[in-house]
């Protein structure tokens, strides 16, 4: 009885080991199953998901106009203070003075990509961008100004 | 056992307990010196049999500390929240419950680390997360640190 168990043990063990080797052997001989993505080489075809949160960007149209009214809702919504909005008073053509953004400072190094700022924005001025290769040699370069130089508020956003 | 029966039963164990039924679980407030005998009874009693301490924490209410114990019975499936008030804020002390529930050892270490509440008869009271020579207790409301950033 002992001998029977002993030999049975050996054979069942060997069988279980061979099952595993069969699987690895299958993949060794089926090279088309390889799932590796050759990342820096496939940059051309690599497409991030459309909701991918890579960075906060402020889209501008062809007339260099953005939609940010400077309401600071995003600044308040940000949990780790990575957004800072500096506003200025600007004289409109009709003579009225209005609050406009001077600089929209976005600190990528502090951002956790939680999407709360985009969610909070009432005028859809900021969105999440698809770029994800953010490495730079100097940390200072991660402090970005999102509004382009001399950009203006789009007509009709502020109502 | 529903909240009414629990209340009745706990009152038998600790006549001085007060109750609060606004939350999801029945909450009972007992005095700190009564804590250990009441807890032992709660765990041992066959009708209560609170064998599972699933949360142990402390709240700093500035003028006093409130220890909060969330108890559940795994076989009878009822919950009870026990609160114990520690009035001494400079040198807070309370009995350890780690004899009853072994999980309390780590949770009490954490509370000691964060609030500075000393647990009597604790086997190895130590600063669990912070260094042994850390100054102050971070989760106290009056804690200040030169490196703290105010958002």
């Amino acid at each position, binding site marked *: 009885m002992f001998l029977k168990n002993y030999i049975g043990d*050996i054979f069942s063990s060997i069988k279980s*080991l061979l099952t*595993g*080797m069969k*699987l*690895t*052997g299958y*993949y*060794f001989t089926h*090279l088309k*199953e*390889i*799932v*590796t993505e*050759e990342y820096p080489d496939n940059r051309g075809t690599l497409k991030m998901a459309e909701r991918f949160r890579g960075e906060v960007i402020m889209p501008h149209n062809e007339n260099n106009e953005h939609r940010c009214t400077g309401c600071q809702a995003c600044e308040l919504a940000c949990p780790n203070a990575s957004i800072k909005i500096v506003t200025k008073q600007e004289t409109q053509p009709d003579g009225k003075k209005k609050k406009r953004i001077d600089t929209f400072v976005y600190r990528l190094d502090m951002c956790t990509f939680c999407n709360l700022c985009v969610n909070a924005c009432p005028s859809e001025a900021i969105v999440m961008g698809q770029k994800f290769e953010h490495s730079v040699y100097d940390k200072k370069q991660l402090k970005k100004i999102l509004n382009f130089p001399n950009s203006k508020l789009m007509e009709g956003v502020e109502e | 056992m529903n909240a009414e029966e629990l209340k009745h039963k706990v009152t038998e164990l600790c006549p001085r307990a007060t109750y609060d039924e606004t939350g999801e679980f029945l909450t009972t407030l007992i005095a700190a010196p009564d804590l250990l005998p009441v807890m032992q009874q709660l765990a041992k009693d066959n009708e209560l049999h609170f064998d599972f301490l699933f949360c142990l924490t402390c709240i700093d209410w500035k003028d006093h500390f409130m220890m909060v114990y969330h108890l559940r019975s795994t076989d009878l499936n009822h919950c009870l929240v026990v609160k114990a008030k520690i009035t001494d804020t400079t040198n807070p002390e309370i009995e350890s419950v780690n004899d009853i529930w072994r999980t309390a050892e780590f949770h009490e270490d954490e509370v000691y680390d964060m609030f500075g509440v000393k647990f009597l008869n604790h086997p190895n009271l130590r600063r669990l997360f912070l260094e042994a020579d850390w100054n102050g207790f971070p989760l106290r409301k009056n804690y200040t640190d030169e490196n703290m950033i105010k958002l």
Partner: protein
Amino acid sequence: MNTPTPYSFASLATGIHAWLRQAISNDTLLQVTEMVITGVCLLVFLVLLCFFLGYMERKVAAFMEIRLGPNRVGPKGSLQIVADTLKLLFKEGLTPNGADKFLFNLAPGIMVVTSMMAVAPIAFAKNFQIWDINIGVLYVSAISSMAVIGILMAGWSSNNKYSLIGAMRSGAQIVSYELSIGLSLITIVILSGSLQLSEIVESQANGWWIFKGHIPVIIAFVIFIIASTAEINRAPFDLTEAEQELTGGFHTEYAGMKFAMFLLSEYINLFIVSAIAATIFLGGWMPFHIGSLPAFNHVMDYIPSFMWFFGKTFFIVFIIMWFRWTFPRLRIDQLLNLEWKYLLPISMVNILIVTAMAIFGWHF
């Protein structure tokens, strides 16, 4: 069988010898010169072999793990291992504070030297052998068990508890598995009646032992493969390194070229056990013959003998790599259980059967 094939190394070796004889008249000097030439050739060969084995291991691992493996340096990543060696060369060779400096630096040397010594009696091709010692089997098993000294030395002198545990494990492990290796080699020694590797190969001219010897030799072969995997500390028996438990075991504290020497010796050991298995069980450089098919046999004879040897060797190397990339690791007590409760009793019974086979002439 004695017609020299055009690829034979024997004629090359004889040619060099004759040429040197003309140039150097002094016999001692001639011998020393030849030794140096052999040594240098061997070193170059082994280092190149290790490059190849390293590349092979990475590729085998990668394909089994549905990855691509190294594919950047050189064509298909073949120079990756060269790049890694260069990196290791330029790394600082740290010696930890409190280590026994002499033994710490000596240990990798001992590892490499012991594994290189075992290459001597291996017959790489027909009539091509460095040293045809008449106790070849004994020599190889004696030399290979010396590796444990290097491991113990490295583990003890590192002044690190992980290293020490790893070294102690390896002591228990290698001493145990020596037995099974010896016993499984003895089966063939009994059958062929010789300890000399060249004679063992010759005895397989009419068929490899694994075919001639029926089931007992197959069992001995399997035991040899398992035990030698354990002997050279490869997964699933890599308890001396046991990365997840001991962070690297006996070579935790080694860096740079000293660490590379451990790798070197690991791959040389891998090659040696595979070569021994190929020589003893699979007929060394003997081509594959089927008795009743003379045409087929003739075609087989045209494949040069070193191709046969290396083909067989790398087949076994591949099997050992296949083990490594399939199985999880054993625990130390299970490892010793496997040896003392399974491999050793089985190989003892096996030897009895083989002896009976040899006496009654039951094999082919």
